């Protein structure tokens, strides 16, 4: 069973006709047009080209999801593109504005860095005890800014739960791309206790953020500093910090995904992912295992990029709390026992309808956040080649 782990087996899925798929794609096409072509945008040809390509790309992927009945493989195209294009657009803008990727630590503490959602859980204790936001982003200066961003995040989270990590996060794509490269995993046996590490990172970072009164994760442990902005090293501590960022990036985002075919940073490290898992409890959408169909073959468990299925959870007909609703298990199950589900309904109640409803919400978010980042990355590339 374990040897089958590493290649994603695709079960026959319910396919749709072209016309029906087109009709189902229409709302997303309209949403893409609204997002990328609202009045006053794209005054230069490069932006128009990038916006057109992105709108077509996002719409085409959704069409293929509707046509083939598969989710994971099409979502992965989007997600990997997002992961690869985000640093390109980000670094270009950073260098344009600041002239360097390096940000002095005092500017980070003063909140003069671009917005990032990863430190959101770190805000809670300092804000509760001192009414101070230790947020390393420019929106910290405005209570309206932080309130609207947190409000938007909360609204999306209530719908998507940890689906955020598969449809909105602009960091996970690089490791998902890395995990897709090898045909087989070199490391197949992973101690399940590693799944608990993100909770430990979350707890440690929340406590240290309170103790240091700074976003400790951004200062010490964020692997993505290696491909976004780093801390200007002016002494030994700065060198240690940047060394940690680079080592964590190489280990968790490059080497381990290649060796395990899993999203190792998300599965074993990301504190925001752990925090986001809590909201899977209240999100209306979930993936369930239909025990009447399940043959306990373990294909879904092996296909899951996030180790969100265990023998015990499958026996209970559920995914673990960390499930990010990427659809890999649903696509892989040869018995179609892994199904999309809306809480409060019967398990057998129209799983494809549940999938559709979830995907409309998730893809709308993907277009809104990811699409704009992809377009920005494309503009940067066009800037260099045209």
């Amino acid at each position, binding site marked *: 069973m374990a040897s089958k782990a590493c290649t994603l087996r695709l079960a026959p899925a319910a396919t749709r006709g072209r016309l029906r798929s087109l009709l189902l794609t229409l709302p997303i096409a309209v949403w893409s047009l609204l997002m990328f072509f609202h009045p006053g945008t794209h005054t230069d040809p490069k932006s128009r080209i990038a916006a057109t390509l992105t709108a077509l790309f996002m719409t085409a992927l959704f069409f293929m999801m509707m046509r083939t009945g598969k989710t994971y493989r099409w979502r992965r195209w989007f997600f990997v593109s997002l992961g690869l294009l985000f640093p390109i657009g980000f670094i270009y803008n950073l260098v344009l504005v600041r002239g360097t990727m390096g940000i002095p630590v005092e500017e980070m503490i003063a909140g003069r860095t671009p917005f990032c959602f990863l430190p959101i859980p770190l805000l809670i204790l300092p804000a509760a005890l001192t009414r101070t936001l230790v947020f390393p982003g420019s929106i910290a200066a405005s209570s309206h800014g932080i309130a609207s961003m947190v409000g938007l995040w909360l609204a999306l989270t209530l719908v998507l739960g940890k689906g955020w990590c598969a449809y909105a996060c602009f960091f996970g794509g690089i490791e998902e791309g890395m995990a897709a490269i090898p045909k087989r995993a070199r490391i197949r046996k992973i101690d399940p206790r590693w799944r*608990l*590490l993100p909770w*430990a990172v979350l707890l440690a970072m929340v406590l*240290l953020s*309170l103790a240091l*009164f700074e976003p400790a994760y951004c200062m010490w442990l964020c692997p993505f500093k290696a491909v976004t902005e780093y801390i200007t090293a*002016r*002494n030994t501590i700065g060198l*240690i910090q940047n060394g*940690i960022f680079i080592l964590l990036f190489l280990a968790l985002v490059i080497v381990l995904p290649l060796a395990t075919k899993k999203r190792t940073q998300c599965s074993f490290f990301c504190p925001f992912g752990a925090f986001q898992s809590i909201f899977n409890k209240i999100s209306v959408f979930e993936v369930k295992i239909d025990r009447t169909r399940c043959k306990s073959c373990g294909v879904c468990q092996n296909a899951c990029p996030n180790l969100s299925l265990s023998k015990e959870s499958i026996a209970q007909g559920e995914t673990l709390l960390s499930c990010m609703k990427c659809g890999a298990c649903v696509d892989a199950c040869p018995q179609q026992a892994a199904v999309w589900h809306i809480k409060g309904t019967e398990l057998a109640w129209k799983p494809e309808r549940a999938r559709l409803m979830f995907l409309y919400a998730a893809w709308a978010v993907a277009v809104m956040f990811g699409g704009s980042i992809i377009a920005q990355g494309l503009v940067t590339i066009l800037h260099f080649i045209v």
Partner: protein
Amino acid sequence: MAAFVLFSEALALGLASGPACIAACGPVLVPSLLTEQAGFKPHARFLSVFLGARLAGYLLFAAAAWEVGTLVSLPQASRVLLMGGVDVLLAGVLLWYAWSARHLCGSSCASSKLVQIGAAKDRRMAGAAALGLLTGLSLCPPFVAAGVRAAEQGSMTQALLFFVFFFLGTSVWFIPFIGIGCVARNQAVMTVARMTMALIALYYLSLGIAMLMGRKAYGF
């Protein structure tokens, strides 16, 4: 009257510094308490030992502060070295603690032992004491302020009493930590707590090493 004013000042300083103290001790205290059995009694015992050792750290500091005039007058390099040494020791104790807690499991095991360092029964509170002492030696700003006032006193006894009242003021803020006893314990919680301790130990270790190497934090 003068003594009353002085000790009221120490108490007020302690009360006002409480949030800074729980913020500073939280990273050490929370995961350590999470490796305890569920329930108020084990937590109260752990916290008592922790705070008792912290008081010992305070008194040690008060005696030293009075003896040398004030630790604030120490050269910057010496203070950094002192802090670096405390950080490295704290990291060592935390790592030892996290490692030794592997023998314990959650409340489902019905273990009557508290988390211990090493296997010996008589050393079971040594971890709490070591952590309390080392966090008590932390040179946080309110603590240094108290050190300055203690150093100004006419006798060492007064300096020590000043720190006792300062300690009482800060300790009030630690009482809510007993509430962690309400968190249900299982193997997952214990593992997360141990991993958290190890991560926090690594933080203190890297900070301590950087300080011992004689560098100033962030170039200040």
